[in-house]
Protein backbone atom coordinates (compact mmCIF):
# COMPACT_ATOMS: atom_id res chain seq x y z
CA UNK A 1 0.00 0.00 0.00
CA UNK A 2 1.81 3.13 -1.23
CA UNK A 3 -0.62 5.41 -2.95
CA UNK A 4 -1.78 8.60 -1.29
CA UNK A 5 -3.97 10.86 -3.44
CA UNK A 6 -2.53 14.36 -3.92
CA UNK A 7 -4.14 16.88 -1.57
CA UNK A 8 -4.39 19.48 -4.29
CA UNK A 9 -6.22 18.31 -7.40
CA UNK A 10 -7.09 21.86 -8.54
CA UNK A 11 -4.69 21.68 -11.50
CA UNK A 12 -7.23 19.41 -13.20
CA UNK A 13 -9.62 22.33 -13.57
CA UNK A 14 -7.01 24.93 -14.36
CA UNK A 15 -8.36 27.08 -17.20
CA UNK A 16 -5.03 27.18 -19.05
CA UNK A 17 -4.70 23.41 -18.90
CA UNK A 18 -8.25 22.93 -20.19
CA UNK A 19 -7.55 25.43 -22.97
CA UNK A 20 -5.01 22.93 -24.36
CA UNK A 21 -7.83 20.68 -25.53
CA UNK A 22 -9.18 21.41 -28.97
CA UNK A 23 -10.74 19.48 -31.84
CA UNK A 24 -7.70 17.46 -33.07
CA UNK A 25 -6.94 16.22 -29.54
CA UNK A 26 -10.47 15.04 -28.80
CA UNK A 27 -11.04 13.54 -32.26
CA UNK A 28 -12.15 9.89 -32.09
CA UNK A 29 -10.67 8.95 -35.48
CA UNK A 30 -7.61 6.83 -34.61
CA UNK A 31 -4.23 8.47 -35.08
CA UNK A 32 -1.86 5.83 -36.54
CA UNK A 33 1.21 7.24 -34.79
CA UNK A 34 -0.39 7.22 -31.34
CA UNK A 35 -1.87 3.80 -32.03
CA UNK A 36 1.59 2.45 -32.86
CA UNK A 37 2.96 3.88 -29.60
CA UNK A 38 0.31 2.27 -27.36
CA UNK A 39 0.78 -1.03 -29.18
CA UNK A 40 4.53 -0.79 -28.62
CA UNK A 41 3.89 -0.04 -24.93
CA UNK A 42 1.84 -3.22 -24.48
CA UNK A 43 4.46 -5.30 -26.29
CA UNK A 44 7.21 -3.77 -24.16
CA UNK A 45 5.47 -4.27 -20.82
CA UNK A 46 3.35 -7.36 -21.46
CA UNK A 47 0.38 -5.44 -20.04
CA UNK A 48 -2.71 -6.02 -22.25
CA UNK A 49 -4.06 -2.46 -22.22
CA UNK A 50 -2.24 0.61 -23.48
CA UNK A 51 -3.73 4.11 -23.56
CA UNK A 52 -3.15 7.69 -24.51
CA UNK A 53 -5.61 9.04 -21.96
CA UNK A 54 -6.47 12.74 -22.01
CA UNK A 55 -7.85 13.98 -18.71
CA UNK A 56 -10.40 16.61 -19.68
CA UNK A 57 -13.09 18.48 -17.71
CA UNK A 58 -15.53 15.67 -16.95
CA UNK A 59 -14.05 12.64 -18.68
CA UNK A 60 -10.80 10.91 -19.47
CA UNK A 61 -10.76 10.44 -23.23
CA UNK A 62 -8.75 7.65 -24.85
CA UNK A 63 -7.12 9.29 -27.88
CA UNK A 64 -5.40 5.99 -28.63
CA UNK A 65 -6.04 2.57 -27.15
CA UNK A 66 -5.28 -1.07 -27.42
CA UNK A 67 -6.88 -3.88 -25.43
CA UNK A 68 -9.99 -2.14 -24.08
CA UNK A 69 -13.22 -4.13 -23.56
CA UNK A 70 -15.99 -3.53 -26.16
CA UNK A 71 -17.96 -0.96 -24.16
CA UNK A 72 -14.89 1.20 -23.48
CA UNK A 73 -13.63 0.90 -27.04
CA UNK A 74 -17.07 2.25 -28.02
CA UNK A 75 -17.09 5.20 -25.64
CA UNK A 76 -13.33 5.79 -25.59
CA UNK A 77 -13.97 7.43 -22.22
CA UNK A 78 -14.85 7.10 -18.56
CA UNK A 79 -15.74 9.67 -15.94
CA UNK A 80 -12.68 11.67 -14.92
CA UNK A 81 -13.38 11.27 -11.22
CA UNK A 82 -12.99 7.48 -11.36
CA UNK A 83 -9.77 7.52 -13.40
CA UNK A 84 -6.25 6.70 -12.22
CA UNK A 85 -4.88 9.01 -14.92
CA UNK A 86 -6.21 12.08 -13.08
CA UNK A 87 -3.52 11.46 -10.43
CA UNK A 88 -0.75 11.42 -13.05
CA UNK A 89 -1.96 14.86 -14.15
CA UNK A 90 -2.35 16.17 -10.61
CA UNK A 91 1.15 14.96 -9.64
CA UNK A 92 2.73 15.86 -12.97
CA UNK A 93 4.72 12.70 -12.48
CA UNK A 94 4.71 8.95 -13.06
CA UNK A 95 2.23 6.81 -11.15
CA UNK A 96 2.92 3.12 -10.52
CA UNK A 97 0.28 0.89 -8.97
CA UNK A 98 1.28 -2.70 -8.43
CA UNK A 99 -2.10 -3.90 -7.16
CA UNK A 100 -5.08 -1.56 -7.10
CA UNK A 101 -6.95 -3.97 -4.81
CA UNK A 102 -4.45 -3.12 -2.09
CA UNK A 103 -4.62 0.66 -2.55
CA UNK A 104 -7.63 2.04 -0.65
CA UNK A 105 -6.73 5.59 -1.70
CA UNK A 106 -7.67 4.86 -5.33
CA UNK A 107 -11.20 5.22 -6.75
CA UNK A 108 -12.91 1.80 -6.69
CA UNK A 109 -15.17 2.15 -9.70
CA UNK A 110 -12.83 0.94 -12.47
CA UNK A 111 -11.31 -1.72 -10.21
CA UNK A 112 -14.74 -3.21 -9.57
CA UNK A 113 -16.22 -2.61 -13.01
CA UNK A 114 -13.25 -3.74 -15.14
CA UNK A 115 -10.97 -5.58 -12.73
CA UNK A 116 -8.01 -3.23 -13.10
CA UNK A 117 -5.11 -4.26 -10.86
CA UNK A 118 -1.75 -2.96 -12.16
CA UNK A 119 -1.27 0.52 -13.64
CA UNK A 120 1.73 2.52 -14.80
CA UNK A 121 1.25 5.99 -16.29
CA UNK A 122 3.56 8.79 -17.41
CA UNK A 123 2.49 12.41 -17.93
CA UNK A 124 1.58 13.60 -21.40
CA UNK A 125 2.40 17.23 -22.05
CA UNK A 126 1.12 19.70 -24.61
CA UNK A 127 2.05 23.39 -24.71
CA UNK A 128 3.62 23.10 -21.27
CA UNK A 129 0.47 21.62 -19.71
CA UNK A 130 0.01 18.08 -18.43
CA UNK A 131 -2.97 16.91 -20.45
CA UNK A 132 -3.10 13.24 -19.62
CA UNK A 133 -1.33 9.96 -19.09
CA UNK A 134 0.44 7.49 -21.33
CA UNK A 135 -0.37 4.32 -19.46
CA UNK A 136 -0.44 0.55 -19.45
CA UNK A 137 -2.92 -1.52 -17.45
CA UNK A 138 -3.16 -5.12 -16.38
CA UNK A 139 -5.94 -7.17 -14.82
CA UNK A 140 -3.43 -8.93 -12.56
CA UNK A 141 -0.93 -7.46 -10.09
CA UNK A 142 2.37 -6.61 -11.76
CA UNK A 143 5.47 -4.47 -11.47
CA UNK A 144 7.78 -3.19 -14.23
CA UNK A 145 11.58 -3.23 -14.05
CA UNK A 146 13.49 0.09 -14.08
CA UNK A 147 14.71 -0.65 -17.64
CA UNK A 148 11.17 -1.14 -18.91
CA UNK A 149 10.02 2.00 -17.08
CA UNK A 150 12.76 4.01 -18.81
CA UNK A 151 11.65 2.76 -22.22
CA UNK A 152 8.00 3.41 -21.37
CA UNK A 153 8.86 6.99 -20.38
CA UNK A 154 10.55 7.45 -23.77
CA UNK A 155 7.38 6.24 -25.53
CA UNK A 156 5.35 8.71 -23.44
CA UNK A 157 7.62 11.53 -24.64
CA UNK A 158 7.02 10.51 -28.25
CA UNK A 159 3.28 10.47 -27.60
CA UNK A 160 3.51 13.99 -26.13
CA UNK A 161 5.39 15.15 -29.23
CA UNK A 162 2.65 13.74 -31.47
CA UNK A 163 -0.09 15.35 -29.39
CA UNK A 164 1.79 18.64 -29.65
CA UNK A 165 1.73 18.32 -33.46
CA UNK A 166 -2.00 17.62 -33.40
CA UNK A 167 -2.66 20.58 -31.11
CA UNK A 168 -0.86 22.89 -33.55
CA UNK A 169 -3.43 22.06 -36.24
CA UNK A 170 -5.79 24.53 -34.57
CA UNK A 171 -5.06 28.27 -34.61
CA UNK A 172 -4.01 29.48 -31.17
CA UNK A 173 -6.36 32.02 -29.61
CA UNK A 174 -5.34 35.59 -30.42
CA UNK A 175 -6.37 36.67 -26.94
CA UNK A 176 -7.78 35.01 -23.87
CA UNK A 177 -11.13 36.81 -24.00
CA UNK A 178 -14.20 35.74 -22.06
CA UNK A 179 -16.09 35.13 -25.31
CA UNK A 180 -13.35 32.84 -26.57
CA UNK A 181 -13.36 30.85 -23.34
CA UNK A 182 -17.15 30.49 -23.54
CA UNK A 183 -16.95 29.31 -27.15
CA UNK A 184 -14.31 26.73 -26.22
CA UNK A 185 -16.26 25.51 -23.19
CA UNK A 186 -19.44 25.21 -25.25
CA UNK A 187 -17.61 23.11 -27.84
CA UNK A 188 -15.99 21.05 -25.08
CA UNK A 189 -19.43 20.20 -23.68
CA UNK A 190 -20.36 18.68 -27.06
CA UNK A 191 -17.04 16.83 -27.35
CA UNK A 192 -17.37 15.39 -23.84
CA UNK A 193 -20.96 14.23 -24.43
CA UNK A 194 -19.93 12.35 -27.58
CA UNK A 195 -18.96 9.11 -25.73
CA UNK A 196 -22.58 8.64 -24.61
CA UNK A 197 -23.70 8.81 -28.22
CA UNK A 198 -20.96 6.51 -29.49
CA UNK A 199 -21.96 3.90 -26.94
CA UNK A 200 -25.65 4.11 -27.86
CA UNK A 201 -24.80 3.93 -31.55
CA UNK A 202 -22.69 0.81 -30.99
CA UNK A 203 -25.61 -0.76 -29.10
CA UNK A 204 -28.11 0.26 -31.79
CA UNK A 205 -25.83 -1.38 -34.37
CA UNK A 206 -25.87 -4.62 -32.36
CA UNK A 207 -22.11 -4.48 -31.76
CA UNK A 208 -22.36 -4.62 -27.96
CA UNK A 209 -24.75 -6.45 -25.64
CA UNK A 210 -27.27 -4.78 -23.34
CA UNK A 211 -25.01 -5.66 -20.36
CA UNK A 212 -21.99 -4.04 -22.02
CA UNK A 213 -24.15 -1.03 -22.89
CA UNK A 214 -25.17 -0.65 -19.25
CA UNK A 215 -21.62 -1.14 -17.97
CA UNK A 216 -20.31 1.51 -20.36
CA UNK A 217 -23.05 3.89 -19.22
CA UNK A 218 -22.13 3.18 -15.61
CA UNK A 219 -18.55 4.24 -16.32
CA UNK A 220 -19.96 7.52 -17.65
CA UNK A 221 -22.55 8.02 -14.91
CA UNK A 222 -21.20 11.47 -14.07
CA UNK A 223 -21.72 12.60 -17.64
CA UNK A 224 -25.31 11.43 -17.95
CA UNK A 225 -26.16 12.50 -14.40
CA UNK A 226 -27.34 9.00 -13.57
CA UNK A 227 -26.37 7.26 -10.37
CA UNK A 228 -27.22 3.73 -11.56
Amino acid at each position, binding site marked *: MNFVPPKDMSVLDDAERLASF*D*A*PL*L*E*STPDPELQALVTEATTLTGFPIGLVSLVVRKIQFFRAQVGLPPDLSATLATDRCTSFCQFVVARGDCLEIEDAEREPGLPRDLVERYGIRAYVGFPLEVQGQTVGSFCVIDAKPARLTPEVLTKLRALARRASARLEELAR*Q*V*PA*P*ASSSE*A*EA*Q*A*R*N*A*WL*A*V*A*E*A*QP*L*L*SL*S*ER*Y*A*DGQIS*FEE*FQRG*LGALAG*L*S*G*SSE
Partner: protein
Amino acid sequence: MSVAVAPPTMINRVETLKRDHGRLRVLLGVCEKASASELPGLLRQLHDVFVPHQRAKEQLYEVVVASCQDSKDATTLTLLNIFRTNLTVMSSAVLGFFSNVDTNPERLHQRFRTVAAALRSLMDTEEKSVFPLCLRQQTRMQQPARSLRIQTLSSPPWQAGGR
Protein backbone atom coordinates in the same frame (compact mmCIF):
# COMPACT_ATOMS: atom_id res chain seq x y z
CA MET B 1 -66.35 27.67 -32.65
CA SER B 2 -63.34 25.62 -31.74
CA VAL B 3 -62.47 22.48 -33.63
CA ALA B 4 -60.94 19.64 -31.65
CA VAL B 5 -57.67 18.52 -33.25
CA ALA B 6 -56.72 14.91 -32.73
CA PRO B 7 -53.23 14.44 -31.27
CA PRO B 8 -50.72 13.12 -33.80
CA THR B 9 -50.40 9.36 -33.91
CA MET B 10 -47.06 7.75 -33.09
CA ILE B 11 -46.42 6.92 -36.73
CA ASN B 12 -47.09 10.54 -37.74
CA ARG B 13 -44.73 11.82 -35.07
CA VAL B 14 -41.99 9.42 -36.16
CA GLU B 15 -42.44 10.21 -39.85
CA THR B 16 -42.26 13.96 -39.15
CA LEU B 17 -39.07 13.49 -37.10
CA LYS B 18 -37.52 11.39 -39.86
CA ARG B 19 -38.25 14.16 -42.36
CA ASP B 20 -36.61 16.65 -39.96
CA HIS B 21 -33.58 14.36 -39.82
CA GLY B 22 -33.36 14.53 -43.60
CA ARG B 23 -33.40 18.34 -43.47
CA LEU B 24 -30.85 18.43 -40.65
CA ARG B 25 -28.50 16.07 -42.48
CA VAL B 26 -28.62 18.25 -45.61
CA LEU B 27 -27.95 21.35 -43.54
CA LEU B 28 -25.05 19.71 -41.70
CA GLY B 29 -23.47 18.84 -45.05
CA VAL B 30 -23.95 22.42 -46.29
CA CYS B 31 -22.38 23.81 -43.09
CA GLU B 32 -19.37 21.52 -43.44
CA LYS B 33 -18.73 22.72 -46.99
CA ALA B 34 -19.51 26.38 -46.29
CA SER B 35 -16.90 29.11 -46.40
CA ALA B 36 -15.77 30.76 -43.19
CA SER B 37 -17.95 33.80 -43.83
CA GLU B 38 -21.06 31.71 -44.53
CA LEU B 39 -20.82 29.37 -41.54
CA PRO B 40 -22.14 31.64 -38.74
CA GLY B 41 -25.30 32.41 -40.78
CA LEU B 42 -25.81 28.73 -41.59
CA LEU B 43 -25.41 27.85 -37.91
CA ARG B 44 -28.33 30.17 -37.16
CA GLN B 45 -30.40 28.28 -39.74
CA LEU B 46 -29.35 24.99 -38.21
CA HIS B 47 -30.35 26.30 -34.79
CA ASP B 48 -33.80 27.31 -36.11
CA VAL B 49 -34.42 23.81 -37.50
CA PHE B 50 -32.92 22.04 -34.50
CA VAL B 51 -34.89 23.76 -31.71
CA PRO B 52 -38.46 22.78 -32.76
CA HIS B 53 -37.22 19.35 -33.83
CA GLN B 54 -35.70 18.73 -30.41
CA ARG B 55 -38.96 19.85 -28.72
CA ALA B 56 -40.93 17.44 -30.90
CA LYS B 57 -38.57 14.63 -29.87
CA GLU B 58 -39.04 15.46 -26.19
CA GLN B 59 -42.79 15.23 -26.72
CA LEU B 60 -42.37 11.87 -28.43
CA TYR B 61 -40.40 10.58 -25.43
CA GLU B 62 -43.03 11.93 -23.05
CA VAL B 63 -45.80 10.03 -24.82
CA VAL B 64 -43.94 6.76 -25.29
CA VAL B 65 -42.40 6.70 -21.80
CA ALA B 66 -45.83 7.26 -20.24
CA SER B 67 -47.18 4.43 -22.37
CA CYS B 68 -44.34 2.09 -21.25
CA GLN B 69 -44.99 2.99 -17.62
CA ASP B 70 -48.64 2.02 -18.11
CA SER B 71 -47.71 -1.29 -19.70
CA LYS B 72 -44.94 -1.91 -17.11
CA ASP B 73 -42.41 -2.74 -19.85
CA ALA B 74 -39.20 -2.28 -17.83
CA THR B 75 -36.64 -3.03 -20.55
CA THR B 76 -38.14 -0.69 -23.12
CA LEU B 77 -38.54 1.93 -20.43
CA THR B 78 -34.86 1.63 -19.41
CA LEU B 79 -33.72 1.95 -23.02
CA LEU B 80 -35.97 4.91 -23.71
CA ASN B 81 -34.76 6.68 -20.58
CA ILE B 82 -31.14 6.16 -21.65
CA PHE B 83 -31.80 7.55 -25.13
CA ARG B 84 -33.83 10.39 -23.67
CA THR B 85 -30.93 11.33 -21.37
CA ASN B 86 -28.58 11.30 -24.36
CA LEU B 87 -30.92 13.67 -26.18
CA THR B 88 -31.12 16.02 -23.19
CA VAL B 89 -27.35 16.07 -22.58
CA MET B 90 -26.46 16.49 -26.25
CA SER B 91 -29.18 19.05 -27.06
CA SER B 92 -28.14 21.24 -24.19
CA ALA B 93 -24.50 21.06 -25.32
CA VAL B 94 -25.34 21.74 -28.97
CA LEU B 95 -27.54 24.72 -28.08
CA GLY B 96 -24.63 26.05 -26.01
CA PHE B 97 -22.40 25.73 -29.08
CA PHE B 98 -24.91 27.64 -31.23
CA SER B 99 -25.09 30.45 -28.64
CA ASN B 100 -21.31 30.79 -28.28
CA VAL B 101 -19.94 30.87 -31.80
CA ASP B 102 -16.15 31.09 -32.04
CA THR B 103 -14.86 34.22 -33.73
CA ASN B 104 -11.97 32.40 -35.41
CA PRO B 105 -13.38 30.93 -38.64
CA GLU B 106 -10.86 28.10 -39.00
CA ARG B 107 -11.28 26.98 -35.42
CA LEU B 108 -15.07 27.25 -35.74
CA HIS B 109 -14.94 24.94 -38.76
CA GLN B 110 -12.83 22.36 -36.93
CA ARG B 111 -15.03 22.47 -33.85
CA PHE B 112 -18.19 22.29 -35.93
CA ARG B 113 -17.05 18.89 -37.20
CA THR B 114 -17.40 17.56 -33.63
CA VAL B 115 -20.95 18.94 -33.45
CA ALA B 116 -21.92 17.53 -36.85
CA ALA B 117 -20.56 14.09 -35.91
CA ALA B 118 -22.47 14.18 -32.61
CA LEU B 119 -25.76 15.14 -34.26
CA ARG B 120 -25.38 12.47 -36.94
CA SER B 121 -24.64 9.87 -34.29
CA LEU B 122 -27.71 10.93 -32.29
CA MET B 123 -29.96 10.75 -35.37
CA ASP B 124 -28.54 7.39 -36.49
CA THR B 125 -29.27 5.85 -33.10
CA GLU B 126 -32.77 7.29 -33.02
CA GLU B 127 -33.53 5.91 -36.47
CA LYS B 128 -32.12 2.47 -35.66
CA SER B 129 -33.39 2.07 -32.11
CA VAL B 130 -35.63 4.80 -30.72
CA PHE B 131 -38.17 5.14 -33.53
CA PRO B 132 -38.65 1.36 -33.91
CA LEU B 133 -39.11 1.11 -30.12
CA CYS B 134 -41.76 3.83 -30.24
CA LEU B 135 -43.63 2.14 -33.08
CA ARG B 136 -43.42 -1.25 -31.40
CA GLN B 137 -44.76 0.22 -28.18
CA GLN B 138 -47.65 1.82 -30.08
CA THR B 139 -48.47 -1.55 -31.67
CA ARG B 140 -48.39 -3.26 -28.27
CA MET B 141 -50.75 -0.70 -26.79
CA GLN B 142 -53.19 -1.19 -29.65
CA GLN B 143 -53.14 -4.98 -29.53
CA PRO B 144 -55.37 -5.59 -26.46
CA ALA B 145 -58.04 -3.22 -27.81
CA ARG B 146 -57.88 -4.77 -31.28
CA SER B 147 -58.06 -8.34 -30.00
CA LEU B 148 -61.02 -7.40 -27.80
CA ARG B 149 -62.82 -5.91 -30.80
CA ILE B 150 -62.11 -8.96 -32.94
CA GLN B 151 -63.38 -11.21 -30.22
CA THR B 152 -66.56 -9.19 -29.90
CA LEU B 153 -67.21 -9.03 -33.64
CA SER B 154 -66.51 -12.70 -34.17
CA SER B 155 -68.60 -13.79 -31.21
CA PRO B 156 -71.84 -15.56 -32.12
CA PRO B 157 -74.99 -13.54 -31.33
CA TRP B 158 -76.12 -15.87 -28.61
CA GLN B 159 -72.82 -15.30 -26.77
CA ALA B 160 -73.10 -11.54 -27.04
CA GLY B 161 -76.44 -11.67 -25.33
CA GLY B 162 -75.18 -13.93 -22.57
CA ARG B 163 -76.43 -17.35 -21.61
